[in-house]
């Protein structure tokens, strides 16, 4: 597959707010030879790297083989693609968000453009720099531009542009999309802060990790409810997470088998009568998911459980009663 096609799949050309990327995209996608030229340059790039010079990437040096386990890098077969890989890797890294949309077997997990994962959004500027580095011979000015003010406010702008739905639910421009695990703060502290701010104001920005257990699965998972906007998103995320536990197909050690999982089978189970999504609320009652509006749900949910349908029989009436009482 030619590299230019991958560029399109990343959608760098689609998202015009990434100005730097879109500037670069036309030149790279239109000139295949220049990409390949760059990749051969990369081979020499590799060798330059081991000399620990601050030579600008793209400057040439006399040929020198990079020893790798005593063998020369040059003689590795192209299928490993060392020369080609840097660009591809960077390119395909951001591809992830869309590859989910493209590669998902039945398209149920397709992410709309606006719903790009935050990790990918964060990756955008990285790509922009790297491609600038790889493509420009005289990189220093390019890096400076990219590294300057235009870059640092950009993530905020990008996120605002790309996550409008999230902003609808939150308190306007003061909140922004979050990168997983950043800033590096422990859950205990995050949850404490979240409960503090919840007391102080109605819009608690932050995260809300709740445990998810599934009957028959060997371990619990945790999800951050704030990363989902509605029940559908939560449900697809849970399907993905637990689809690797094919019900009843566990090894003797209690660990599930890895191959042959069937997402569609799990969804059948979830949508059918075998499993139901339930949650525990602040009053320690177990309720069926979907009965209350999403905002009310995330405020009262303390824990999730994917329960066998037979055990959930008694839940529905209570949930309805509770709703009636609350109204």
């Amino acid at each position: 597959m030619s590299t230019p096609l991958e560029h399109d799949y990343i959608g760098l050309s689609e998202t015009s707010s990434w100005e730097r990327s879109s500037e670069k995209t036309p030149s790279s996608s239109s000139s295949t030879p220049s990409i390949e030229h760059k990749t051969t340059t990369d081979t020499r790039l590799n060798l330059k790297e081991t000399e620990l010079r601050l030579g600008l990437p793209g400057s040439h040096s006399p040929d020198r083989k990079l020893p790798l386990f005593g063998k020369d890098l040059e003689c590795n077969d192209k299928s490993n693609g060392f020369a080609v890989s840097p660009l591809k890797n960077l390119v395909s890294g951001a591809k992830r968000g869309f590859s989910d949309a493209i590669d998902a077997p039945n398209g149920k997990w397709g992410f709309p453009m606006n719903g790009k994962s935050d990790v990918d959004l964060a990756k955008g500027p990285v790509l922009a720099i790297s491609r600038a580095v790889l493509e420009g011979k005289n990189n220093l000015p390019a890096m400076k531009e990219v590294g300057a003010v235009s870059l640092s406010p950009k993530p905020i702008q990008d996120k605002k542009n790309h996550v409008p739905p999230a902003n609808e639910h939150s308190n306007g421009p003061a909140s922004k999309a979050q990168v997983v695990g950043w800033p590096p703060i422990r859950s205990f502290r995050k949850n404490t802060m979240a409960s503090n701010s919840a007391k102080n104001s109605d819009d608690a920005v932050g995260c809300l990790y709740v445990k998810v257990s599934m009957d028959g699965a060997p371990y619990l998972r945790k999800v951050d409810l704030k990363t989902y906007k509605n029940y559908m998103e939560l449900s697809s995320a849970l399907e993905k997470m637990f689809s690797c536990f094919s019900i009843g197909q566990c090894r003797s050690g209690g660990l599930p088998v890895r191959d042959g999982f069937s997402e569609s089978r799990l969804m059948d189970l979830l949508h059918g009568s075998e499993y139901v999504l339930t949650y525990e609320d602040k009053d320690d009652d177990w309720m069926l998911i979907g009965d209350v509006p999403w905002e009310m749900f995330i405020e009262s949910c303390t824990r999730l459980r994917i329960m066998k349908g037979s055990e959930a029989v008694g839940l529905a009436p209570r949930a309805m009663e509770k709703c009636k009482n609350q109204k």
Partner: protein
Amino acid sequence: MHKKMAFSFPDEVLEHVFSFIQSDKDRNSVSLVCKSWYEIERWCRRKVFVGNCYAVSPRMVIKRFPEFRSIELKGKPHFADFNLVPDGWGGYVFPWIVEMAGAVPWLEEIKLKRMVVTDESLELIAKSFKNFKVLILSSCEGFSTDGLAAIAASCKNLKELDLRDCEVDDLSGHWLSHFPDTYTSLVALNISCLGSDEVSLSALERLVGRCTSLKTLRLNRAVPLDKVANILRRAPQLVEFGTGTYAAELRPDVYSDFAGAFSSCKELKSLSGFWDVVPDYLPAIYPVCSKLTSLNLSYATIQSPELIKLVSHCPNLQRLLVLDYIEDSGLEALASSCKDLQELRVFPSDPFGVEPNVSLTEQGLVAVSSGCPKLQSVLYFCRRMSNEALVTVAKNCPNFTRFRLCIIEPRTADYLTLEPLDVGFGAIVQYCKDLQRLSLSGLLTDRVFEYIGTYAKKLEMLSVAFAGDSDLGLHHVLSGCESLRKLEIRDCPFGDKALLANAAKLETMRSLWMSSCAVSFGACKLLAQKMPRLNVEVIDERGPPDSRPESCSVDKLYIYRTVAGSRFDMPPFVWTMEDDPSLQLS
């Protein structure tokens, strides 16, 4: 023909000499001197430290050190603290407990960090070790108060039960009552992580009352302030105390009760807790402040003026953990009051807000670096930084051993010059020659890694996020940092080349973590093939990595050296070389 050394001592003498050597590193060096020293040392090693529970198997440890009494184990990679490691990855302690239960019946101490501890494990500990004394669980999860009840009920000689930052399933508060009435040996109890229903106050009061050697008590948030007085009065010998919630109705009788109980604790050196602080109650602790060496206010939502008043009462403070409510002005006050300060951690009060909510900038850090000559360890969250400030800090504090800076917005440039912060961090590694731990943030190019590789020769742990331009950056670090043990990287454009070119380096390190970088599965397989003493784990929840093109980047990569081979407890989303059928025959 072997000449007997004129200086050879009987084994017992050597053993006695070795007993003065406590440090793990030194013991390891001792064991390398000669075969007889190896033998003597291994029989008398009492404390075993295993930095990565998968680097070695429990049986191997027991075989080499048959007589150990204390074991410390670490499980998940550090980034698990920030939810980057999916649940179920591993780090189970149970297999270790099982092996030790049979072979090390006189085990006294178990210290675990980032491990999964089940109630079953706790029950087995309670049952198996008759002289069990110390259980320290740091950032662990997987157990409930039922497991704690088993420990309480059976461990008659228990001295320390420390649950720091653990996730405990709340089932009932009555586990404390399982300590028998005859039990009096508690010295340290830290239950600060427990939830609301997990502590029975009357049981706690009785326990504290009869354990007259209790030196450390850290309560959880649910313990109300007006009950603290009762507890403190029963333990005037406390050295370390963590309050519960620090909020109460403003009533003079409650206040004087509380203040009176506090002032009767003449030995207090360390305070923590302070959830939900009502500022009017703060003066109650002023009488003990002059002796305080450690103060953890990192959950206290009090503003700068109160914080300034508080720290100005603590001239002997060595360690301060605080929220950024302290602001630059508070840090300046700290710098002038606390000349013995060695460790400072400033946490963000509003980490997800876009606009700064407090006036805390690089100035506060500069002030502390200038005023506190003994400052060694810093963790600082802020929103802006400059190279100039970092250079100043570096020159002020050449004794830094740990420097962790987190500029909240990724890739933030020097706010004065708009340049990358390479030069600033370069100054840190250049001036602080004993630096062991460094965390980077802000806008950084490959250049900063060149500085690190050149100067940071004592660096053992490096954390990198959203930095660098190319593989050159990673290569600088792997080829230059001679003492590097742990490297964790996220969201950097580092790929296969630097990793493969420095494969041998990875065996000299404990572990390498790379997530959201540019490493291909092909490179991972190649690395695993060539380096049999490394476990190369690809953590990817999207499905089998070979369902994607080989050059597609893996999501997360965790590489660690091991003599135990591949582990048996990998979940479905961890992929190793063994998962590739095409490699089975090679």
